[in-house]
């Protein structure tokens, strides 16, 4: 198990390094001078300003040197300073990262807490009313775009029932209850959208696993059909579900862009979006690296789960 985790860790580190290189390259190698981009129309007017800016940003040095110093900065937690505010990017990322993780974690938990039972009911009751109802619910959740489910949630819980704030953010340390109340709707919006994926995957995988001979043997041992499904079929059926959740983690991150904007949640995505509009490129770089890091971490967490559930994964995965 430890060897398996070690290999997954090394793979994750390599992925992250490649992602950082890609982030760097996308800004420095692609056509279009970031400085010209930054300065907009005035750029052409005053070459001296451009030159000064380049020096200030270190863009006059050879590319490889720039890359090494940037990576070096990354390693020591220095992501440069915001062009707008002059604040260190790293500090801002570290403030916003937990907020986005919270959103993703909350959304993922809701998706699994609702999606897995829904998938089980759908698979178990195939051809019966409960099963069909569960399938319909799963598909409905799956097909509603996150901004639609988000708006519906606001209408129901903020406007009609008036029990949750429609948007905003309060630090946990300041007011824990209010913090969680603010988190509830955006996390649910992400969760409901992803729940459909989880439910459909669970249904498909469990329907297949339920027909396995070892589930029949479990019943031959004296377990009821439901107990055999829950104890023997479900754990194995969840292995591919977990894998798909990992692959679809991008959906979750993408979902946060819309949800953070919709609910005014000051996470990484909203940081990235405002930085792009302001052409604050050290912030863009820093936010992208952080988002990739989240991606890789989710993948690592998924691999770890799989290794725990399925003993064969631990041995075969090189």
């Amino acid at each position, binding site marked *: 198990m430890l060897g398996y985790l070690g290999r997954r860790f090394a793979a994750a580190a390599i992925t992250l390094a490649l992602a950082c290189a890609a982030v760097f390259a996308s800004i420095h190698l692609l056509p279009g001078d970031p400085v010209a981009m930054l300065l907009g129309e005035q750029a052409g007017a005053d070459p001296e300003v451009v030159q000064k800016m380049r020096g200030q940003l270190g863009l006059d040095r050879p590319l490889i040197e720039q890359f090494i110093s940037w990576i070096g900065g990354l390693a020591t937690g220095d992501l440069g300073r915001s062009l707008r505010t002059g604040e260190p990017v790293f500090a801002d990322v570290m403030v916003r990262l937990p907020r986005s993780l919270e959103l993703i974690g909350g959304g993922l938990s809701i998706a699994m807490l609702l999606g897995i039972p829904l998938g089980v009911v759908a698979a178990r009751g195939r051809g019966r009313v409960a099963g069909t109802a569960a399938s319909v619910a799963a598909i409905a959740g799956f097909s509603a775009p996150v901004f639609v489910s988000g708006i519906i949630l606001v209408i129901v819980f903020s406007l009609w029932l008036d029990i949750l704030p429609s948007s905003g953010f309060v630090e946990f340390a300041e007011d824990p209850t209010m913090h969680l109340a603010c988190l509830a709707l955006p996390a649910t919006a992400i969760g409901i959208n992803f729940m459909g994926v989880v439910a459909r995957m669970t249904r498909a995988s469990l329907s297949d696993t339920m027909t*396995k*001979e*070892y589930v*029949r*043997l*479990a*019943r*031959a*041992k*004296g*377990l*009821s*059909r439901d107990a055999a499904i829950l104890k*023997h079929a479900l*754990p*194995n059926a969840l*292995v591919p579900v977990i894998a798909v959740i990992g692959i679809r983690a991008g959906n979750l991150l993408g979902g946060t862009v819309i949800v953070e904007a919709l609910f005014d949640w000051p996470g990484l995505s909203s940081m990235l979006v405002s930085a792009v509009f302001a052409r604050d490129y050290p912030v863009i770089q820093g936010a992208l690296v952080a988002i990739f890091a989240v991606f890789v971490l989710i993948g690592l967490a998924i691999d770890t789960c799989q290794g725990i*559930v*399925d*003993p*064969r994964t631990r041995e075969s995965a090189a």
Partner: protein
Amino acid sequence: MRNAGDVVLSARRLVTTFDTPSGRLRAVDGLDLHLRLGEVVCLVGESGSGKSVTGLSLMGLIDPPGHVTCDEFWFDGHDLTTLPESEMERLRGRRIAMIFQEPLSALNPSRRVGDQIAEVLRIHGLASRAEATRRAVELLGRVGIDDAQLRARSYPHQLSGGQRQRVTIAIACIGSPRLIIADEPTTALDVTVQTQILDLLTEMQTSLGSALLFITHDLGIVAELADRVVVLYAGQVVEEAAVEDLYRTPGHPYTVGLLASVPDVDAPRKRGVALAAIPGTVPNLLEVGTGCRFRERCDRAHDRCGAEPPMITLSEGHRVRCWLYAGR
């Protein structure tokens, strides 16, 4: 023949149907079966003749769209025609157990084999967790797995095919069942391993004093294993006899054909003899009408065979479903 003990299972006119899109299929059609403690009964027939469905029907493990009916069905003092499912669950694994054909797919890939054996005792509340584990390891040793303590912690994919089947035998035996149903337990194994598994199975059955219903299509195994043989064809019993009677005076033309396809009955160690040596195949169960189901393939068929053949008793315990013996 070993001394036959008390009747442990008795089924009369067992019928198992499956509702398929193209109609109702009678996979088992009016089977009579009586099993006594201590005896080995072989259920023989070609692939598709309804052997597995019979085994699952006896276990009460036929799921919709399948449906089982039975005029009379007694097991170990319980009337299974009226027994609620929750009571049946208490019998399964403890009083009646089953071994499947493919040991790898019959074991849960993500659970340690020791736990899978101990689970039977846990389900039925027969032992504490520690005690169940201890007895599972002990039984693992008895079914011939070296280093049982260590092996109990293995996962199924870490064991060989023979070892896996030893594990499923341990699962079947740990509850001390009165009846073990073994559905072609050696078909998926190497020939050399087959003999060891058969020896183990009969050894366990003898020490438990239980009945063994051994399902096979391999007549080489039947000769050395069975006390009695039930020959199944297209869901119906066509012949039933003590093993000596069946080999000495086979009655049904199907049985005769089967035996003729075994190269040398006196050398039963030769295994892997398939029952396909009779020309033709088992009829489509959706299309069988009235009359003898074997008549299309039978070299002694005549006009009478278009009507349902009667079950005729040739001698004590020797019954044949064939017109050849009618009116004698």
